[in-house]
């Protein structure tokens, strides 16, 4: 039987590995590891995601990954699942609704509200989070990045990583590429920091999308999200 000191030590050690998580329980944010594992298996039927750049993510600290999204592509969710498997850590996504049953189900999958305080709390507790930029259906374009959520990462003192995602509504193959942490263009003392960092992240995601390779044909086909390249 554990001594009180041993128990305290055990409690103070945050779970950082997927294999350590106990099935049939929820964690401090209501994420259900058993359900997540099941849904991850089901998600493999829909997406075959290859992840690159995960070595940029911190091993134990928290970090915010900002990805490009397209309407109905569920990019933050499949990115969270794929990165979670790649780094063997629970990864949460930002942007769950707060109405049952969808909100409750999303919370079980690791969803958080898109509120700066919620994001800051999770990041400060050493969690990896994925948030989406505003949806943009144009190929290679990235929507606006919510500077308030980026500000939450700054206040929590964690890095913000750009992440490029590419998927297709018809094909299984999908890709996630995580970049090195985005740097603030210049030091500011006020809220301009988060605005400029959000713009910088947006730019970095666009650069990562460029690096995916360009299959633009110069025809209207480029607008169709069928290729699996150049957009979420």
């Amino acid at each position, binding site marked *: 039987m554990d001594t009180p000191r041993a128990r305290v030590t055990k409690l103070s050690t945050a779970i950082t590995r997927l294999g350590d998580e106990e099935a049939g329980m929820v964690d401090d944010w209501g994420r259900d590891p058993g359900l997540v594992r099941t849904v991850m298996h089901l998600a493999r039927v829909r997406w075959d995601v290859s992840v690159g750049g995960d070595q940029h993510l911190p091993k134990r600290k928290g970090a915010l990954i900002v990805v490009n999204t397209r309407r109905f592509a569920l990019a933050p969710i499949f990115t969270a699942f794929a990165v979670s498997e790649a780094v063997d850590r629970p990864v949460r996504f930002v942007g769950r609704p707060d109405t049952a049953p969808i*909100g409750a189900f999303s919370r079980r999958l690791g969803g958080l*509200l898109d509120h700066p305080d919620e994001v800051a709390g999770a990041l400060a507790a050493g969690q990896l989070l994925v948030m989406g930029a505003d949806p943009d259906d144009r190929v290679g374009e990235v929507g606006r990045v919510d500077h308030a959520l980026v500000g939450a990462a700054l206040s929590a003192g964690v890095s913000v990583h750009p992440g490029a995602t590419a998927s297709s509504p018809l094909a299984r193959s999908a890709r996630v590429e995580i970049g090195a942490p985005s740097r603030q263009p210049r030091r500011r003392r006020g809220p301009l920091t988060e605005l400029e960092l959000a713009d910088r992240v947006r730019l970095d995601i666009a650069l990562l999308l460029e690096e995916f390779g360009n299959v633009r044909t110069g025809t209207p086909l480029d607008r169709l999200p069928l290729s699996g390249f150049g957009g979420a």
Partner: protein
Amino acid sequence: MQIGPPIRTTGSDAQEAQSGTGDLSTGTSSVHGMGGRRVFVSGVGGELGTLVASLLEAEDWVGALSGIDADPPRRRLHRTEFHRIHPDEHDRIVETVVDFDPHVLVHVGVWEPDARAAPHAAALLTDAAATSIIGAAAECPALEHLVVRSGIEIYGRARGALTRPAESAPVQPTSEWGRTVAAIERTAARVGERVGVTVGALRLAPVLGPHVPSPLGRLLRMPAVPFSVLADPPFAVIEDRDAARAFIAAARVGLAEPVNVVAPGAITALQAARRGRRIPVPLVGPDWRIARTLSHLLGAPIPDHVSETLHRGRLADNRLMRSLLGFQPESSTTEVIDRLYHWPSVIRQPARVQVA
């Protein structure tokens, strides 16, 4: 009217410290700078209050210790001077507290709805106790520090409320109990500002313990446990002993702000029912009205803050607890829930001699 005389359980050391003749150079150290502090505990008759008093008795920085409640303490206290006074007896409360002139006041005297009193009565008793005791403390010239019991219900669970609010989250209670603890914090903060003392508030998760009257604990121990089939949200709890240790830490360090006191981990009602081998009863919408009535009839009323917990969840960020109090709960939420199902039920002993 005094129901009974003050119980002076021991004499010399407590009285010496109270009269100022205690030896303050014995090497006892405390954050307050010296030993022999006079500590007053309100609500010392409740399970949590009794635990707090018994732990304070073992603290070397505590000199004289006094307590007040409408009911006697649940276990033997060796150094604590107990006064049995009803919360309505403002004059006697003020007289008792002012005579004692504490350096530290620990206010645990709150009534959770449907724990020991019906919601309306609980709110009245809590308000009466908070007003008289904290008000009386304001009249004490030696007062340096105030610790009050609050709850994480203070954050409320309105739509869009944070999943795991930190202490900086806005206070927006959405239940009667939440509004009650918010009022206690307001009263304490006003007194703190007016008389220039530090005020710490411990925002406790639902407190469970073998002898703690808790509506949530009672409900989870029923043979059949209702849960929201559409949400089944997570909640966290704290064991009574850990909560009491948090009060001691807060009094010792002179906590000057609100802190969430929550055991690590979380659990849902369905998971709790499964762990306790209870029958989970899935409910949706109007079924809850029937369940609440039935549960009330069976002796486990579901007050609005417990209903809110079962529908919207109840978690809170506990990082400040570790950094400000230097305190870590010994039991996780899951362990407390597991123990909840192993605590013995009330055993009714028939009278040896029938007198009627």
